[in-house]
């Protein structure tokens, strides 16, 4: 039956592993400095969410021997989508692993996981437990909860950036098999080579990307981005982060022409690149949607409209 939103409905979470005994430093940073809420705290895993998010988690951190990206989770509409994707992905030659509800993460329904051509693992799940909005469901004050004030306290997980050795192969896979749309892309000056792309499935505020694809090593994380209301908030957040001696990227607060966001990039104590962003593209998940095209010689303007230089550190993966 049509007239239903189907397939991937939303970006659910990103899960990373950090070499951090009992996650003491990680929790100190993500709860105390970034201003996320802890949903579930286990000996070797913590589930976090933003205060404006109703679902159980949007960030999961595991204690692991090596720092790394574990998986990115997307929610699909229902069991039928899980079955459809399983069939299609297997037909495309991928190894698809099925997990029962509650595995590997608490609160997830039945899910499948697989490796995309770029080397990262994606998990598609059809259900996630809800905790509810931090401000409640009854005539709420949509105001940052008191315990999170004087932190960035982002509103939502916005997008996840990854690096892949062959961007075209990864982007083709994501658009053809998972239904993603491209909102912007960077190509070589002769137009023949795809270097980077921003992909979306959602019509949202601060829109245009749930996955950002950059050229680089396989299987690695480039950044995790969170939604903020506007640029002024981000300027103030930069003050809180600097006050806490957080490592802020040399671009500082800037307009990122690529993606049309106002952004601030910074690093957690383990070197994970994080971003606060506002603005974004107005998109439409429709086959006729046309992406913005950047050519490689405009890369400086694309990455920072204000700085107009190439920041080599920014081009590297972080985990």
């Amino acid at each position, binding site marked *: 039956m049509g007239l239903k939103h189907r397939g991937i409905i939303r970006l659910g979470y990103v899960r990373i592993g950090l070499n951090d005994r009992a996650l003491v430093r990680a929790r100190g940073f993500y709860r105390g400095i970034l201003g996320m809420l802890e949903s579930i705290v286990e000996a070797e895993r913590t589930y976090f969410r933003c205060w*404006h998010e109703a679902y159980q988690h949007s960030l999961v951190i595991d204690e692991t021997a090596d720092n790394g990206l574990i998986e990115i989770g997307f929610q699909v509409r229902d069991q039928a989508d899980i079955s459809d994707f399983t069939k299609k992905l297997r037909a495309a030659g991928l190894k698809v692993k099925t997990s029962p509800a509650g595995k590997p993460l608490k609160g997830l329904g039945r899910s499948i996981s697989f490796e995309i051509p770029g080397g990262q693992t994606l998990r598609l799940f059809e259900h996630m437990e809800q905790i509810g909005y931090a401000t409640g469901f009854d005539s709420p004050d949509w105001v940052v909860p008191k315990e999170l004030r004087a932190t960035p306290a982002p509103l939502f997980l916005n997008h996840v950036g990854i690096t892949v050795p062959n961007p075209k192969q990864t982007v083709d896979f994501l658009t053809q098999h998972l239904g993603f749309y491209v909102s912007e892309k960077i190509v070589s000056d002769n137009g023949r080579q795809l270097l980077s792309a921003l992909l979306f499935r959602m019509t949202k505020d601060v829109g245009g990307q749930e996955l950002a694809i950059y050229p680089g090593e396989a299987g690695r994380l480039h950044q995790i981005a969170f939604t903020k209301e506007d640029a002024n908030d981000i300027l103030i957040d930069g003050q809180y982060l600097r006050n806490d001696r957080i490592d802020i990227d040399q671009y500082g607060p800037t307009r990122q022409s690529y993606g049309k966001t106002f952004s601030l990039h910074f690093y957690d104590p383990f070197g994970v690149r994080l971003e606060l962003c506002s603005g974004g593209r107005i998109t439409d998940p429709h086959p006729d949607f046309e992406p913005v095209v950047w050519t490689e010689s405009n890369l400086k303007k694309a990455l920072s409209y204000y700085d107009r230089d190439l920041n080599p550190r920014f081009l590297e993966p972080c985990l």
Partner: protein
Amino acid sequence: MAISRFSYASLNVQDIDASVRHYTEVVGLRLVDRTKTTAYFQGADNQDHHCVIINQRKNAGLDHVGFKVNDRGDLDEAAKAARDHGLAVKEVKAGQIKGQGRGVRITLPSKHDMVLFYEAEKIGYLTGMENPDPVPRQEKLGGKVTHLDHTLLSCEDREPTVRFLTEVLDFSLTEKVVDPTGGIIAAFMSCGHTMHDLALGPGPDGSFHHMAFGMESRGEVIEGVDILKETDTPALEYGITRHGVAGVTTIYFHDPSGNRNEFFNGAYLAPGMPNEIDPIVWQLEEFPRGGFYYESNVPQSFFETVT
């Protein structure tokens, strides 16, 4: 598949020349095309042909709202589903509405017409599709509107339309205002992940309450209020304010025929599976804080004045 976005509002105005000045020089939209009796506008950041159509008519108000679907087959399916639901449906031929393909026109239980269509002519973003500047040139007049975001329509009984939109067209109910018996006074519904694309409030059937234009920052909303004052555009007396519902920074004002417009900024998402997250419920006695957060008072004119 499904409705992919709230695309445009087609409004009736009494003086088309004054209205063209309003929507370009005050609101800050691009004038895409115009004839003697009709004009088409688009925001800086939408790539389709129009987000507002104005038609020269005797009375102000809504002609119809336009929503885009992302599968051609959705049009026939929606027409059938609407007829099965007991609603009147009319065919809209390709080109009958400039800049868009074939559509189906459904009269909602609230007596508002909704046109669903699949194809839109592309005009691109204001700053272009190749290596674009992230902000428009400074000579652009009017508010720094990026896009048309949502509309609020008024009707006698909200529930039948809420049922049709959520059960048949896969909208999500994200927030509602209820009376002491639980009856819906206002309903906020989304066909994507923003807090609302279409809202319903109390008033005569078929009437138009407002349409809202998004901006990227609260600073731009402040600038927008300054433009309204500078141009003597009739606006809500509160100046800049915040909605408790949706938690966005906002100002309401009127076009020369009285159709209400809104500038707002905010990043409120309700990203979930359609109708999976329970709606926020506002009790009527709390609604003044929901309407206007700083003032906690809803002026009587707010619901009474519709076109």
